[in-house]
């Protein structure tokens, strides 16, 4: 039996339309966009078209779209680039983030402190998605500028944070708001002409685009300092010869993801409901993480008591079901992830499995995944040696 890929939150394959859009830029149209000749002009035009497509898809201006080498880089550029700029202007900004952010945001925020930020505040998050009010209020009330970074959709659980409300409060308090939206685009409406977000991270490979290409949206007036030094590409914010091919692919992926969003979300929500119904039936004691909260439709994270997490994941892989134990970035580690710990406390003895659904996912696949999970858990529980 063919293995089933249920790890779309880790990464996705490049879809056919994206591959076709990228194809010409691998050979014929290979120029450097900075070059003054025909090849350069063609590349520059393609890059501009890509930038335009991204701008249109999320409701910003052409000049507010910066191509980067991926989500981690965009997160770093947003948080550290903004902090550096504020420090240069003589401020001592606070960085506020949440306990369930991606490691890129948590680590970049920590690095910002060593680069002049006054402090890093990490807000607790409840399983319903609500944030710890007091420290947030306190930070926003400070006379020094505040840089707040919160993800729209949590990668491990699908939990949706109320980004529009948070963005509004930060704007009102005069702070800077960064949102990592890599798991949100194509699943939720992401419109910056409706939500006052200053900095937004996107990446290609979560939405059937190429890896190693991302976007940072920086709204006009949100001054940043570059992290890398070199030529003047991307308005000096991200020097280095542009990856035109990647940008074209990413732009195509973004356009398609946004255009198909409603249909995708509906389809995935139905599939996930089907999966979770079956999992609950198959596995005694299973809990669905953030199950009562608003979630993006493609992720289902479950906690299973009484089994070893790594044995469970390996066994599922041996049954041809590819899932992850949290985020793919920390596989191998046997500890429960920082996200699940933040939401549920230290819960030793709970195995965490993340199923994430995508374009190729079928009803038959989720049925088989649930059945395999039930069988493997039963085997592990029965033979579980002390």
């Amino acid at each position, binding site marked *: 039996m063919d293995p089933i890929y249920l790890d779309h939150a880790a990464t996705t394959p490049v879809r056919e339309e994206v591959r076709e859009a990228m194809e010409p830029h691998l050979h014929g149209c290979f120029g450097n966009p900075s070059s003054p000749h025909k090849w350069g002009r063609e590349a520059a035009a393609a890059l501009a078209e890509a930038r335009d497509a991204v701008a249109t898809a999320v409701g910003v201006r052409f000049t507010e779209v910066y191509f980067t080498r991926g989500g981690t880089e965009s997160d770093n550029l947003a948080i550290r680039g903004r902090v550096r700029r504020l420090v240069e202007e003589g401020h001592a900004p606070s960085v506020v983030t949440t306990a369930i952010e991606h490691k890129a945001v948590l680590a970049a925020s920590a690095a910002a402190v060593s680069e002049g930020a006054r402090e890093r505040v990490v807000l607790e998050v409840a399983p319903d998605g609500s944030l710890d009010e007091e420290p947030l209020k306190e930070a926003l009330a400070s006379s020094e500028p505040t840089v707040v970074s919160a993800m729209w959709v949590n990668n491990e659980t699908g939990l949706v944070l109320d980004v529009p409300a948070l963005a509004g409060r930060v704007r009102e308090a005069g702070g800077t708001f960064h949102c990592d939206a890599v798991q949100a685009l194509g699943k939720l409406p992401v419109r910056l002409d409706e939500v006052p977000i200053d900095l937004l991270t996107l990446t290609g490979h979560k939405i059937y685009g190429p890896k190693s290409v991302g976007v940072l949206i920086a709204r006009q007036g949100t001054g940043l300092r570059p992290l890398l030094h070199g030529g003047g590409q991307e308005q000096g914010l991200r020097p280095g010869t542009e990856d035109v091919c990647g940008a074209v692919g990413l732009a195509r992926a973004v356009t398609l993801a946004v255009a198909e969003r409603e249909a995708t979300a509906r389809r995935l929500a139905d599939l996930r409901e089907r999966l979770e119904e079956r999992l609950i039936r198959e596995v005694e004691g299973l809990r669905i993480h953030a199950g009562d909260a608003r979630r993006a439709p493609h992720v289902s994270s479950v906690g299973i008591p009484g089994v070893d997490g790594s044995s469970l994941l390996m066994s599922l892989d041996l049954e041809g079901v590819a899932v992850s134990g949290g985020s793919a970035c920390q596989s191998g580690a046997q500890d429960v992830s920082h996200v699940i710990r933040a939401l549920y406390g230290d819960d030793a003895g709970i195995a965490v499995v993340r199923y994430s659904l995508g374009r190729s996912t079928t009803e038959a696949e989720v049925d088989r995944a649930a059945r395999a999970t039930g069988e493997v858990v039963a085997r592990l529980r029965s033979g579980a*040696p002390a």
Partner: protein
Amino acid sequence: MSRVLVAMSGGVDSSVAAALLTDAGHEVVGVTMKTFCYTGTGSHGKSCCGLDGIADARRVAVALDIPHYVFDVEEDFTRDVIDDFVDEYAQGRTPNPCVRCNSNTKFRDLLRRGRELGCDRIASGHYVRSEHGPDGSRLLRGRDEAKDQSYFLWGLPREILPKLLFPLGDLTKPEVRARARALELTTAEKPESQEICFVPTGDYRDLLQKRLGSVHAALQPGPLVDRSGEVVGEHDGYAGFTVGQRKGLGGGFDGPRYVLEIRPADRAVVVGAREELYSDLVEVGELNWLTPEPPRPGDELSVQLRYRAPAVPATIQTSHGRQLLELHQEFPAVTPGQSAVLFQGDRVLGGGRIVRAGRHTTPAPA
């Protein structure tokens, strides 16, 4: 065919072991045990289970089209193997961490996790043979005398033995290499790993300093004395010595001198001439038997007292609750902390850790 878990270090031997099992029609699952965190050691994991070992094992697994996982056993390994290693040196003995790992950590963990993955057999690339018959399982020396690794496996829990497969037991190293080349495995030309996996620099004294602190008695200077008790020199820490060692003793002797004994009580390293190294009575502890019944006193056995040394004929006896091996011919540099492995012909009966050695005429010192 059954599902078999193969321990893959990323070396050529375990790569070929996995390939042979795949060819034999088994459903093979490869695993690499991460025993030690290499980040921060500044080494590039030259030894086999380092990060490049994991990467090589993965590449081989993909080439063989088998699944491969990493088992993180760092915590158990640190407790069972590294702590023991440090403690043994601190007490003036010379530990054998690979024996310790095979006995306490590696195979137990493979079996436990293998069971969880539905694997009923465990395989490794050791050059030993196992025979499974109606009257139980036997562990035998590998066919390749130059590579035989049975010395390292005497401490296996006996109940694990029936679950073990050693696909290389009937092959020689050149045959294994040829096989790896034929399969175009990325590990085909990989050199033998020699160092201890958690001492990638090759100098175990760095590790002892880190774990014991440099003020520990084992790392302090002390006297070199001869058998009569006369001080004949100074050494820079007894943990740097092992019985039979000649290097590091300085000069000025009337002929080559060897370490005869390490005495932590007064930090002394006892030295003497080559003929003083020989013993024919060996006390062993922590005995483990791979046979249903331990051998009886007077049974004709042979004992191997270091890796790659020939086994010497011996009998076992108990005296005042101590297990003594009576060697039928003298053997040099029997080293406390090392293994004494007992054989009957090619069959591994079991073994123990050497506690002390002496001469028959002068009973082992208490």
